[in-house]
């Protein structure tokens, strides 16, 4: 079990978000004064999903 203030609990702490995808979600979070970083995301591995999955399993 985690404590209420532990960062890992998610609840009871301050939300800070990495947004990966739809731009509007980042904008709406920023409007709520939530710290948010919006990734300049592009399909990884040249848009090859299988290669992207493999790379993610390798931790890259």
């Amino acid at each position, binding site marked *: *079990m*985690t*404590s*209420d203030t532990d*960062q*890992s*609990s*998610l*609840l*009871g*702490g*301050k*939300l*800070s*978000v*990495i*947004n*990966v*995808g*739809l*731009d*509007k*979600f*980042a*904008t*709406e*979070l*920023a409007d*709520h004064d*939530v*710290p*948010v*970083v*919006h*990734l*300049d*995301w*592009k*399909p*990884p591995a*040249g*848009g*090859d*999903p299988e290669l*992207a*999955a493999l*790379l*993610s*399993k390798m*931790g890259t």
Partner: protein
Amino acid sequence: MEHTLNKVFQGFYKDSVALMRLSRDLAEMAGVNEAALMMGSPSNKQILKDAGLLADDGAAAEGGDLILAVRAIDASAAQNAANAIEPQIKSQTRTTTGDTVWQPQTIRAAAKANPDANLALISVPGEFAAAEARKAISRGLHVMMFSDNVSIEDEISLKTQALEQNVLMMGPDCGTAILEGVPLAFANNVTRGDVGIVGASGTGIQEVTSLISNNGGGISHAIGVGGRDLKDEIGGISTLMGIDRLDDDAETKHIVLISKPPGKDVLPRVMKRIKQSPKPFTVCFIGATDLNLPANATAARTLKDAAQTALGGKEFEEKISSNTSSLGGRTKIRGLYSGGTLAAETQVILLDAGLEVASNAAVPGAKNLTDDGDAHQIIDLGDDQFTQGRPHPMIDPEIRKEPLADALADNNVGVILIDIVIGYGAHPDLAGQLADMLSGMQGENDPIIIASVTGTEQDPQVRSSQISALQAAGIHVAGSNADAAIAALDMLGINS
């Protein structure tokens, strides 16, 4: 002679909402018959092919390329339209917090630069979503995955990894969450309070949180888990972790669970976990019967019941006037829903009234739409058959147009039920858009339309403004989706 033109932007990415807007602009240009802008994934190329929009250039595109596809009255009109839209495609949209200039390209870089980050919100195309989530979890981030079209194998693997790392994996296909009072993705601006929610249903969470907030209560946190979490294959991993979090949360005094009926192996595990909690629970497994609940839990048959129970059994009823005189012998209900769980709630209410119900997303006891006979039809417009290659009806309400025209023209249909789900993420004016859609369709002896508006006064669309716009268009508005379904029964002279 009609001409199809494809232009490929290599290694160029735009998100699906931006592409929807651009596609619409392109389709409205002079001489254009049909148009789409899509990333060049195999599934998207198939959609373009089926629509007669794929030319040789597009067929050769890779998953990381953007395809502009346009079919126009002739080659010159197609080229002119493509040229006209290109500057918009290449223009940068506003991103993020305003004063941030540098944008990291990977989760690793973002997490390194922002050590306080604790949640990754992922809404990239489904085929890439699991890879991004895996990277986030391995860095100790909680994940909310809005993306759908993620395999059940990937979901099991991600949730197992999340359990090991002691982080929450909300999703895939998690449309709604409210954490620390912050609405995430498709959620509503609700009052903070002491009711915590764990839900495998986005619109279910939206309806219950909004009803609680609109009737004097408040929400501590609402944790979405994705629609499949309580299937036996997944084992309810995120639901059980969500209950743990809310159990530990001092602000949460009452916990509400919302889902379709769980798998038979998962159900006893959830019941056991509820029993271990010192907090009272409301359990709304829509369509489930004979739940053997522990003493600290109360069953709710509908979303409205769940909200009322969470507020100590407070009744919030908003009856609307019924007028059966204009139905002209038409006896059927047709539901046209953007929210799958709202469609399920209506099915349950109709079934409980002893009616025959058919749906493309049938709850236990309802028939499949294909063999409906003359049953009442409840249609989930968010289902894959309607959303293949296009956004969800809460973003793109045009999906409702054709089924609405069909329902209005059907002499058996006496009442049409419609859900308007507002809040963050949703279309800015669903009620106005519906009113515009109807103005070109309605005749003299049309069915009665009853709607409900899921959301709050604090939402960007403002609930009361949406209600006024609906009423101005001659639409009856009920206080909740359940009330709308009950009003439909009243208008047809059926006792609920």
